[in-house]
């Protein structure tokens, strides 16, 4: 007898496929990386099998502690800014008519389709001395001489915030559009100004989504590679850039592996936290 669609869905095939795919594309590479992270580096770009925790101990050196602090600090700051901008943008989108909402969603989704290289290049032009903001500010008499803002912390922060905003909007859009408009209206009837109504009613009501959006933006910016290279100075490099630097330029595969393991564990812990929070609130 022919199997129905639902029998296929409830059968073993989807589970087996998911397990194989996850094993092949995630657990195997992760296991290899984890193994390599305990290997011993031999000067000259080679390594030998070993079990040493030296690569992990390097995390607590002042140099790498600083890298981790800058990396997490920069990404947290960009995520908070993106959350702030994204929340306000989505709140106004949720109050638009259907046409306005759709147009904004298309615009934001098309931003996601741009590669990080194009975004980084656009911002580097905008922050350049001759063609960008520095030049305009000089023309307007705000600066004594034209100057470039990139590379620099501000330029990198701006671009990271920019690439995170669409993710925030995509996470915040469903809960904010579902939020009954009477909630804000009833807060207003109870004496709250529009801003106060948003802070005391809207924000607490969508708190789980706000946390999820922040964590998503944080993980995404932590993995950013092109923007820190194009718009930041070496001291602003994120952990992804350092992984590449260690693997390709310093030829230190074991240490690059250890850094990658750290990045993955951090990201996975945050994702676990999201689902835990969402389960608690729904």
């Amino acid at each position, binding site marked *: 007898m022919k199997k129905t669609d639902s029998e296929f869905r409830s059968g073993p095939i989807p589970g087996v496929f998911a397990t194989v795919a996850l094993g092949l594309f995630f657990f195997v590479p992760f296991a290899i990386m984890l193994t390599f992270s305990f290997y011993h580096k031999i000067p000259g770009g080679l390594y030998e099998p070993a079990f040493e925790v030296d690569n992990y101990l390097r995390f607590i050196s002042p140099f790498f502690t600083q890298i981790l602090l800058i990396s997490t600090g920069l990404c947290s700051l960009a995520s908070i800014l993106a959350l702030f901008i994204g929340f306000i943008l989505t709140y106004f989108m949720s109050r638009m008519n259907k046409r306005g909402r759709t147009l904004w969603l298309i615009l934001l989704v098309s931003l996601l389709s741009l590669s990080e290289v194009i975004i980084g290049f656009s911002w580097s032009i905008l922050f350049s001395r001759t063609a960008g903001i520095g030049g305009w500010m000089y023309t307007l008499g705000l600066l004594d001489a034209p100057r470039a803002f990139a590379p620099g912390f501000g330029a990198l922060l701006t671009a990271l915030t920019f690439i995170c905003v669409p993710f925030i909007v995509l996470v915040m859009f469903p809960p904010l559009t579902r939020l009954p408009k009477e909630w804000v*209206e009833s807060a207003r009837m109870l004496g709250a*100004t529009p801003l106060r109504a948003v802070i005391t009613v809207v924000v607490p009501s969508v708190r789980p989504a706000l946390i999820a959006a922040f964590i998503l933006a944080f993980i995404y910016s932590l993995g950013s590679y092109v923007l820190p290279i194009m718009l930041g100075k070496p001291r602003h490099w994120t952990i992804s850039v350092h992984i590449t630097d260690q693997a390709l330029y310093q030829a230190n595969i074991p240490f690059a592996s250890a850094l990658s393991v750290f990045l993955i564990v951090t990201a996975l812990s945050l994702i676990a936290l999201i689902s835990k929070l969402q389960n608690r609130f729904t």
Partner: protein
Amino acid sequence: MPRLQIEGVNKHFGSFTALNDIWLDIPAGKLLCLLGPSGCGKTTILRIIAGLESPDSGKVLLDGNDLAILPPHRRDIGMVFQSHALFPHLSVAENISYGLRITGISKSERLERVDELLETIRLPDAGGKRINQLSGGELQRVSIARALARQPRIFLLDEPTSALDANLRETMQIELRRLQQSLNITTVVVTHDQSEAMTLADLIVVMQAGTIEQIGPPMEIYEKPRTEFVANFIGATNMLNCLWDGNCAVLGNNKLNIKSIADSSLTRGDPVKVSIRPERVELLAANRGRKPDSNQLTGTVEFVRNIGNLVEIHTRCENTSIAHTYSPQNLSTELNLREGDAVIVHLPAEHCLLYSK
């Protein structure tokens, strides 16, 4: 208590006319019901009073002062939304005290006021509950308490009992009326339920398609509906298609005298409608060789039902079905009628109302 006036308010949404030249005067301490089918503009009036919508033209006056310059949060108006709009992230007590906190009232005073209100709505132990733990009736009471916490000058309710089941709805209507009378607060209620309007209101405003059809005390609206729409909308009525013959209405071969005729523009042959409430119709036995008198029609009983507190009999006369109702307690005075019985239907002239088409 302040007096609320609405003067010449118009409102359009795109090409749709939501309100067309609305004039209302709500005396201090009274309860006014805006009654009408959905889409007739009643909620729009409420939202304009609240400041959640602004009129295209016209004014809303509170004690003679124009409210236009005040945003909703400064109007000092309490409003209960159809969906209750209670905040699920706050407890019952926090919901009730939300407005008091915004106003900056001290914590001790807030607690005292919340306890007082929980007593008033007869939920003294519900303060610590979450909103999703409340039943429909409790949600309703909490949203009323929250709207009244700041002792507003005007109290607005949008379809306050529409989410409740029939029994609870009646209980809530009585509670609401008692509360409003004890607080003596000027109140506007929006409803599409005519029995709710009859229970609650000092004044009923019947609306249709953005205009006011009739304003008056409940019994006046019931007894003397000014238009066919009002007669049909408030309570059940028999609406008979007749012709005007110069001084009375004609149904088939029968003449129907009408006591008061408001419309003087009628000419002979005009189609008219005669309305009479089922409880005003009288049935007489037809088996004693009795000839129909004026305003009496011969007919045949086609349907009888007894729903406990009411017996309803439908009689077919002149190809028209006429409903008659009576209370079964008066059974002795009524005929024991069955389907198929011949009967004389009396439509007393003083209870017949005439509407030109």
